[in-house]
């Protein structure tokens, strides 16, 4: 690893955190709970999703502990069902969907487009409250006995056979869904209408493009999930039969409606992460992202294709062979824009001045693990292999490579990257690099064995398994404990850095985004005066000229 670094911090003996910033502007709990400031709402979101991440993570720990031995000896089998269901519900709806957009996106998108705030600050706050209400309902569900249908609420299990709290979970997800609709709506409106003078569409950072694409999915997909859950809850409470075959309803209709949202939802989860990677890769290789336009449009292409592949979750559910053929083909098409991104990032690295700060290490982790996750997705898109592998641990490994190896790595990369902007202080570099490496090792040890288990035929969702699978499961559980350490470390040292971290200054990474051209932490209104964008995105020469100008004028 090279010791070279691009980090340029101000002289620590004289540097101070600016006295007036969005954190110090007003004090007291109410000033936070009634805020309209997108940066404060982002911080509120960051705290709440971290809370739910660790609840979901603890449940994952229970799952792995149970699977250490072939028998169901730690948890009763029905408890195990509830544990993996709650893990799924919390991680998908309360962590992954809002992870990057509601925290980092909320914080930096208005600054990146040169605006004082998101277009609709009250709606933004409302979105956080809806999230919190959804979260409280999920906790209520968990405390009052849990739910055991899997996060997919598969009918008729969820409507007739389960005697657990499907209704409260359904309402919770419905409410959390509206929080995501409002976030997406706010982003689209902001990106369309709030750009500063000179900020054309093709001068926007790619982070903004990927959030735009993800927002389209949130706005168009989530309402369909909402109405599906309404029907599900009515079916359970009033006893109607839209999904109940005994009454003439169609369980497959539920699958179509559910996956019409929930497949695009995986792109809601991954696209914002891809935006983070574009920023980080460019900054730490000091180059404009290779093929900017292609990367920008590939985000939109993922959003468009993403709406036409949902039935690949249903290859074994009795849809027609022709539907399987078409959806299989379309699924493979989605791999193309994803590959465009990976190749363009690789070309950005080529002949760049690469340095290995923590965000970059996480970004490398993302590129490797997302590629494996994406490629195995192509295996599963091919209906022949899918019929063999579906409902096995291969699926579990595949989506954890994309969601944990991809999105979580991107989230951590982004949190480290923008931490100095959010707090005004640097995180400790050495230990965080170590955390990134530990996470990478722990992740691979946890989930790679699950690919092998899947191909050997170990089914998912069971508390027990044949003894010959134990060795690989022990590896996986061991990896999970390493992974747990990897996730605990950032919480500890980031909290530490709030008080003891080095003063970061305006632009510690020498990055080009507009958010870096203002003080850290920023003012409540972001800029002292509205910026005028007179250069392309990722223009490092422009940054050099700016610095030269500053030196000349000060000198």
């Amino acid at each position, binding site marked *: 690893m090279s010791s070279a670094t691009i980090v340029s911090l101000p002289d620590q003996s004289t540097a101070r955190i600016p006295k007036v910033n969005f954190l110090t502007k007003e004090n007291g709990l109410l000033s936070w709970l009634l805020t309209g400031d997108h940066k404060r709402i982002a911080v509120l979101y960051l705290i709440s999703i971290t809370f739910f991440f660790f609840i979901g993570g603890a449940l994952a720990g229970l799952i792995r502990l149970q699977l250490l031995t072939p028998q169901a000896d730690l948890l009763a089998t029905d408890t195990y069902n509830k544990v993996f269901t709650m893990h799924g519900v919390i991680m998908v709806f309360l962590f992954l969907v809002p992870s990057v957009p509601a925290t980092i996106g909320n914080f930096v998108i208005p600054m990146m487009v040169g605006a004082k705030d998101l277009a609709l600050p009250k709606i933004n706050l409302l979105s956080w409250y809806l999230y919190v209400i959804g979260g409280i309902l999920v906790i209520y569900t968990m405390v009052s006995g849990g739910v055991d249908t899997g996060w997919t609420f598969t009918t008729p299990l969820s409507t007739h056979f389960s005697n657990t709290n499907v209704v409260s979970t359904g309402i919770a997800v419905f409410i959390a869904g509206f929080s995501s609709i409002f976030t997406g*709506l706010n982003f689209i409106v902001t990106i369309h209408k709030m750009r500063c003078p000179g900020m054309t569409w093709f001068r926007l950072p790619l982070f903004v493009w990927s959030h735009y694409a993800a927002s389209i999915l949130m706005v168009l997909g989530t309402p369909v999930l909402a*109405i599906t859950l309404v029907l599900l809850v009515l079916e359970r409470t009033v006893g109607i039969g839209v999904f109940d075959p005994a*009454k003439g*309803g*169609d369980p497959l209709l539920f699958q179509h409606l559910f996956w019409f949202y929930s497949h695009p939802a995986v792109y809601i989860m991954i696209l914002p992460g891809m935006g983070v990677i574009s920023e980080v890769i460019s900054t730490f290789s000091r180059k404009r992202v290779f093929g900017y336009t292609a990367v920008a449009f590939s985000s939109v292409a993922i959003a468009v294709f993403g709406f036409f592949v949902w039935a690949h979750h249903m290859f074994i559910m009795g849809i027609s062979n022709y539907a399987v053929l078409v959806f299989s083909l379309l699924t493979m098409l989605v791999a193309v824009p994803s590959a465009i991104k990976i190749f363009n990032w690789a070309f950005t690295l080529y002949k760049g001045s690469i340095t290995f700060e923590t965000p970059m290490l996480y970004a490398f982790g993302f590129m490797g693990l997302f590629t494996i996750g994406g490629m195995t997705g192509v295996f599963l898109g091919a209906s022949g292999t899918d019929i063999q592998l579906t409902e096995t641990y291969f699926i579990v490994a595949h989506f954890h490579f994309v969601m944990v190896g991809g999105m979580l790595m991107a989230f951590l990369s982004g949190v480290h990257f923008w931490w100095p902007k959010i707090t005004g202080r640097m995180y400790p570099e050495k230990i965080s690099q170590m955390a990134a490496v530990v996470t990478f090792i722990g992740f691979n040890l946890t989930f790679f064995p699950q690919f092998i288990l899947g191909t050997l035929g170990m089914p998912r969702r069971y508390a027990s398994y044949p003894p010959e699978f134990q060795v690989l499961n022990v590896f996986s559980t061991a990896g999970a404990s390493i992974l747990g350490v990897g996730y605990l470390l950032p919480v500890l040292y980031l909290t530490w850095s709030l008080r003891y971290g080095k003063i970061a200054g305006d632009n510690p990474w020498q990055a080009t985004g507009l958010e870096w051209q203002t003080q850290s932490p920023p003012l409540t209104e972001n800029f002292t005066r*509205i910026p005028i964008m007179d250069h392309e995105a990722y223009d490092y020469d422009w940054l050099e000229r700016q610095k030269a100008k500053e030196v000349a004028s000060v000198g």
Partner: protein
Amino acid sequence: MSDSPVIAHGRLETASDEHPSYQRHHFESVEQQADTTNFAMWLFLLTEVMFFGGLFTAYLILRNWYYPAFVEGSHQLNIFWGTANTSVLITSSFTMAMGVWCAETRRKNALVLCLVLTFVLGLVFLGIKGIEYHEKWVKHHVPGLNYSAESFLNPASDHEVYAEYHDKPLMPDMAAKTELYFFLYFAMTGMHALHMIIGIGILAFMIFRARAGAYTNGHVTFVENFGLYWHFVDIIWIFLFPLLYLISRHQ
């Protein structure tokens, strides 16, 4: 919200700059603000289209499967009240559109009148809907609560409808599917009525504000956007009415 930093700051700024009081601090101009909220409203209506889209999909698929049950089910709907309600709703859309015009041309009293008319017509719609729901309850056509397929197993028992349509008895398994029809009827019109109730609530708030002259000072965005919402709810009904009441009625 009043003590949020953004707004507090906005107030400070408006005191010194000559921004109108209704311009929020983070917008550069009133035009940008109007443009932005208008765009946001259209996007919100798009999410509503997707929301109702799920229901319409379920309806169309199940209608295709159980065509006879859905046809005979639709015979039970009261076409007189349905038509009356359609005209009530269209009239309310007209008064709402007039309201927007009054706000734009700064006619305060006319605006209040239009909003009150819209409000009343909205209530009339809900009242008629209530009459129809009550009729379903009396005939045991409320799925899940008091459902009976008697009118479809033995159509002659239902004299009024039989006199008009001469429905043939359905086989018991097909007759059972009429419950699905009525469930979708209640889900779709109920979801529509819920949107009406929310709209009427907002209308009451707007009447209250309009009397104080809130929308006749040149800042009409709120009235305009609410108008969009109201017309949207109207359009949903324009699709529901033929789907539930009219198509294939005379086959």
